[in-house]
């Protein structure tokens, strides 16, 4: 009868998979239940002589086992489909995996590098005292507290840089150059006050102080852009 064949196959599979969680007779019983198409009779047959804990254990192992048998049957039907591959990896596969991992590693590293570079630029711009942004902020503080500027423009004075196409005005136009071995920076930005229609352009130049390494203003002046044109000199250290 084919039953014995199947039993043999099961035995083989148990041996080949190397799992010894089930003695073979049990497998035979379970197989029987599968063939009968009912689960309860097989269980009750075993259960009549086994304590409850063993029963539940059997219950679990049985499920695992029946799955195994099904897979095996499938395997025999279509040889090409390998359902229960052993975890052994061929060396070609290993090389392939390593190559893929390496590519991913490179991509990740490039991403981290770009992110780090951009963050470095931002932090340098925001926190270094020689960055255009810091100088801009200091120049604006000087301009804002100058009484003549307040008198001309009106109290809440705001400042902005060059308008980009997208309506951002955060970038201040600046030129850095070296003269007599000292770094210089020229800045240009715009201010507006509460007086309507009045706009001013602030020009400033600062020079590096060799002792402190910081920028010191050479001059800061405001040029009023609307009709009665004049300049307000805020600071002149030339």
């Amino acid at each position, binding site marked *: 009868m084919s039953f014995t064949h199947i039993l043999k196959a099961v035995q083989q599979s148990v041996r080949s998979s190397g799992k010894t969680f089930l003695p073979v007779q049990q497998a035979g019983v379970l197989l029987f239940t599968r063939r009968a198409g009912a689960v309860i009779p097989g269980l009750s047959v075993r259960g009549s002589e086994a304590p409850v804990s063993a029963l539940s254990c059997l219950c679990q192992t049985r499920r695992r086992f029946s799955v195994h048998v099904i897979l095996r049957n499938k395997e025999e039907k279509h040889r090409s489909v390998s359902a229960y591959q052993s975890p052994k990896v061929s060396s070609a596969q290993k090389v392939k995996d390593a190559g893929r991992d390496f590519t991913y590693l490179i991509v990740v590293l490039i991403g981290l590098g770009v992110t780090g570079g*951009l963050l470095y630029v*931002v932090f340098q711009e925001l926190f270094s005292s020689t960055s255009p942004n810091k100088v801009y902020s200091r120049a*604006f503080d000087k301009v804002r507290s100058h009484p003549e500027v307040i008198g001309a423009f009106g109290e809440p004075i705001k400042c902005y840089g060059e308008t980009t196409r997208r309506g951002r005005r955060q970038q201040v136009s600046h030129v850095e150059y070296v003269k007599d071995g000292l770094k210089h920076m020229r800045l240009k930005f715009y201010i507006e006050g509460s007086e309507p229609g009045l706009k001013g352009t602030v020009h400033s130049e600062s020079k590096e102080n060799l002792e402190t390494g910081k920028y010191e203003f050479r001059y800061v002046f405001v040029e009023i852009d609307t009709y009665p044109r004049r300049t307000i000199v805020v600071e002149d250290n030339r």
Partner: protein
Amino acid sequence: MEEFAREPCPWRIVDDCGGAFTMGAIGGGVFQAVKGFRNAPAGVAHRLKGSANAVRIRAPQIGGSFAVWGGLFSTIDCGLVRLRGKEDPWNSITSGALTGAVLAARSGPLTMVGSAMMGGILLALIEGFGILLTRYTAQQFQNPMPFTDDPSQLPPKNV
């Protein structure tokens, strides 16, 4: 000239909202088209249909969430400009972080902090990119021009 005369701020919100929606819809559309194509059952007709379906369903949603982000970001940005009276990269970064926090407000304070950090870092990256770009273009434009040596003619000469 008209462009420079106008105050960008309140209008920029609408502008950013629409821009973000377009960006999200197009980018999300492309992404979802690929995803729908790959997830559909086999057969070119099925795949094209799945792709179209995914785009139809998901792209407007993605665009919408982008628009919410963009609109809120721009609103906070404008508010900060108004409050501080100053336009610098801090505005963008702060408003990015605040937007992240506000949009995650319903998932608890911890998520809010994480989301705020993500938003802040993202906007810092974008700002960094912008700064680099301006530096680069400035270099290209100004190097060949001979620099006027004297300070500009406008301030009265040495006092």
